[in-house]
């Protein structure tokens, strides 16, 4: 490239670097299949491609500047997002793009510079591994230099004793007088069968290394001094963390099954078990459970059975972690899986699970109640009841549903109270819950409520629903009550009474109450359209079963 860059080139170089910076942001923000991600790379490629038509693009790197010729085309200060320093810190001093650069190479380059510079990675290693043909770089050699005097001293020492002439002479004469045969093995030329065998071996070897390391670590543990237990267990802990961060549940499970092999008795075993407990505690920590959640959300972990297998290995502190994570999950699938996991762990420690009921997020509370509900364990009732006065109606509905399904003496009072809830949906759930319980007391509570003044004031749908629930008992008492309703006549509240008649007709129909037929036929001719319609439908249902 020309010694004196043209102004237009400078502008283009500036733009390219600006596009690198933009790309670093986008690539970090979006997954690689996102259109923005793809477009960003194409944009940088187009810019580079245009420049490279004229000649290679060579950039100098200083601590806080990137140079094109002698002209700074990028400047920054501080460490934050400083592209110049990002290259500089690893010893990179010059970077050049050659014509022939491909889109693929551009992508690899941008992905390399968009890495969060982790502890063990550096940009030079990343570029080296990618081995990009059209992107070259120059490194400051001193960057790697350890001890400059070492070479000089080692060479001096190695060459110190020059071979004495007389020794050479002696070697020569002895060599030609001796007849010791050659010991060198013969070289067998490599055949295509060797190459095929090699490929097979290499393929076989690509199996998971982590699993192997895990078994090595447990081998070490079974054989080493107790003084080393903490350190080796610490490595196992890191191995577990590593596998969870990668979403590799089977390796994590491998660790737990290896733990089972730890001998169950003896003083040594106690020490060992203590260390293993630490590993388990780490697996149960919020930090790692969060990782698990993220992998569930992203779909990396799909196998629910395996996940449950894994979760059953965690200690009860995992319950709090799972609850915390539950509220942050984005996908339905992930939530469902975590809830199943919680149901499993929670059944062994209801108190820990119940702590989730004080979570500030209403949906978490509802999820916890849902879990209790699905446990079908009456011991859950006491916990569920605690949330019956929750400020969010959606929680209260779930509470009542859960109580209805869990059943037992303990639920009655709470359900009865819910019949007076300010929200219709809660009252209706309470009625259904009573229906679920289907006991005499619950029927009586329901009928009592229906006989009350407030019920008369309720709107038609609510009434209809309550009658429908009552029809579920199909008992003489409910039938009698409904027939009574059909007969009722009132000068006052005529509208309300008519609503009751219609609802009673509907419910008798559901019950298939033949005794009610004469009355229903009568009401068939009612002037009130609603009553006559409901009576007609009920008759049809009773007589023809539909």
């Amino acid at each position: 490239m020309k010694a004196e860059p043209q102004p237009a080139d400078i502008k283009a170089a500036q733009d390219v670097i600006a596009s690198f910076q933009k790309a670093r942001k986008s690539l970090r923000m979006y997954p690689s299949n996102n259109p923005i991600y793809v477009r960003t790379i194409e944009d940088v490629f187009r810019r580079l491609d245009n420049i490279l038509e004229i000649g290679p693009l060579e950039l100098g790197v200083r601590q806080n500047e990137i140079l094109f010729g002698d002209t700074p085309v990028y400047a920054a200060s501080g460490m934050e997002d400083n592209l110049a320093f990002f290259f500089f810190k690893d010893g990179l001093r010059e970077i050049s793009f050659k014509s022939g650069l491909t889109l693929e190479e551009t992508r690899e380059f941008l992905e390399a510079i968009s890495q969060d510079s982790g502890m063990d990675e550096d940009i030079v290693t990343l570029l080296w591994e990618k081995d990009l043909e059209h992107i070259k770089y120059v490194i400051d050699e001193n960057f790697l230099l350890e001890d400059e005097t070492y070479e000089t001293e080692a060479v001096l020492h190695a060459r110190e004793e020059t071979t004495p002439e007389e020794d050479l002479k002696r070697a020569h004469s002895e060599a030609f007088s001796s007849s010791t045969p050659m010991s060198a093995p013969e070289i067998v030329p490599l055949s295509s069968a060797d190459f095929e065998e090699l490929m097979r071996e290499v393929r076989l070897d690509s199996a998971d290394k982590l699993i192997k390391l895990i078994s090595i670590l447990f081998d070490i543990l079974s054989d080493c001094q107790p003084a080393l237990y903490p350190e080796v267990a610490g490595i196992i802990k890191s191995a577990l963390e590593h596998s969870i961060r990668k979403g590799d549940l089977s390796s994590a499970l491998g660790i737990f099954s290896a733990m089972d092999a730890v001998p169950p008795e003896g003083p040594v075993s106690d020490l060992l078990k203590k260390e293993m407990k630490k590993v388990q505690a780490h697996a149960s920590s919020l930090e790692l459970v969060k990782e698990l959640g993220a992998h569930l959300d992203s779909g990396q972990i799909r196998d629910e059975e395996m996940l449950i297998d894994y979760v059953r290995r965690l200690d009860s502190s995992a319950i709090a972690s799972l609850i915390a994570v539950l509220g942050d999950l984005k996908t339905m699938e992930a939530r469902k899986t975590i809830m199943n996991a919680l149901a499993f762990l929670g059944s062994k420690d209801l108190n820990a699970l119940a702590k989730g009921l004080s979570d500030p997020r209403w949906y978490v509370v509802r999820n916890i109640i849902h879990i209790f509900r699905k446990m079908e364990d009456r011991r859950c009732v006491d916990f569920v009841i605690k949330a019956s006065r929750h400020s969010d109606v959606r929680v209260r509905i779930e509470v009542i549903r859960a109580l209805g399904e869990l059943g037992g003496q303990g639920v009655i009072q709470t359900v009865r109270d819910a019949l007076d809830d300010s929200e219709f949906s809660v009252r209706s759930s309470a009625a259904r819950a009573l229906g679920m319980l289907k006991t005499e007391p619950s029927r009586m509570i329901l009928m009592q409520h229906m006989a009350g003044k407030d019920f008369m004031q309720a709107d038609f749908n609510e009434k209809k629903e309550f009658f429908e629930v009552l029809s579920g008992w199909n008992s003489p008492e409910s039938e009698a009550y409904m027939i009574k309703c059909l007969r009722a006549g009132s000068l006052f509240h005529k509208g309300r009474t008519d609503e009751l008649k219609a609802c009673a007709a509907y419910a008798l129909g559901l019950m298939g109450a033949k005794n009610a037929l004469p009355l229903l036929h009568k009401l068939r001719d009612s002037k009130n359209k609603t009553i006559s319609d409901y009576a007609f439908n009920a008759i049809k249902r009773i007589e023809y079963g539909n």
Partner: protein
Amino acid sequence: METKEPEQDRPFRDLVSQLAVVIRTSQLHNPANEAVVTAIEKMIPLINGLLEDESSIQVELVGEYFYVNENRVKFTMEHLLNFDFLQKEFAKRSVGSISFLCPVAVENIQNFLSVFIACQYAPDPYEALVAGLAQEKCIDPGVVRRISVDGEHDLRRAVKKTYFNAVSFTKGVMNKLKAGERVNIKKAKRIVESMVDLLLDREEFLLGMTAIKNYDEYTFHHSVNVSILSVALGQKIGLSKKDLMELGLAALFHDIGKTEIPPLILNKPTSFTDEEWNVLKGHPVHGVRMIFRMKSFDDSSIRAAIVAYEHHMHQDHSGYPGIKKLKDLDLYSRIVSLADQYDGMTSSRVYARVPMTPDKALSLMSKRAGVQLDPLLFKFFINLVGVYPIGSLIMLDTRELAVISGVNNGDFQRPKMILITDGEGNKITPVAASLTEKDGLGRYTRNVMRTLDPVKYKINIAEYLL
């Protein structure tokens, strides 16, 4: 927008691969044979297709890589056999490149093949090839691109610098670990990367550094030597650059557990008691611990830990540590075991042991192949170091003595050497020569009669190789 597919160098790779197939087939059959013609017919569209966009196509061998029109051809394992074969065929004839200048037909390639096959028996194969192809306007051979004397000098200096830097780095790492200080693993990777680069560039220079065994500090040199030998073997079996780095790193740290062995035992000049042996045998386990003290969990530390643990285990599990459930040794462990045994046997270690000559070491290893050592990898290993590995002292039929200094890719039986005496056994100013040199009648100028033990005669190899 036109998106270039990542497989864009595919036609180049296919061409190199097919050229190998064509040459190999024509070594078995005459160029008019149907099998040869079929192979040629497969290659012609590759050449002519590329010629649509380019005025000529040049297939060139530089160092360990093939280039097509200056584009380095990356290859994967499936191509290893063909690439390896073609490399040797080029080297045998001192051919650096073959260019196709215009679209070719079957007859052009057949002409080329008959000359190419025949010329290897000529005293100067390359000259014979050029003469034989004088009439062939479309196909043009080229010489091996030699690095200039200056370039070679620079390269040798870079090799030395890299080698000793790696040794002093290893020393630093081991001392830091002993002192419980943090170790910069980034730097370790970078040092291995520079070794990989040098091996890919001119393998023999860095390999030559491992042949000098009389350094002061065995453990550090040994670590670097094992790393170099492992990477060189890894390269022979077609591992990618990234894999080579992981292998080199694992090999560099294979004995890192020795930092936990008391120096009194480690440097003991006499042989070990049983108890001392047991302490020493703990170094693979300590190695695993040390790896994870240095480095967080990732693919490369996992592999390094496995290698540190398994490098004395032996393929047949006759070594240590003993384990309950037998598992196959990791590929890298098997590679490092070979390199480790070879370097260990040929080094003068602190404890009362005399180093073995390289050929003795190889013959002992060949007995272990299939028992302790992986026989297939050993085959590749011996093809790497040759029958007379670098550093061997040899006696020639001209009654001269010489030190082997490098491998000839075309002929493993005939490496490069440095003559150190005349026919009477008088010490001379060292002269570079090659066992492949022939006289005017096509006979080899020098042949090896046997190897000698330099230690026995106090011959300092380093004097000639450094």
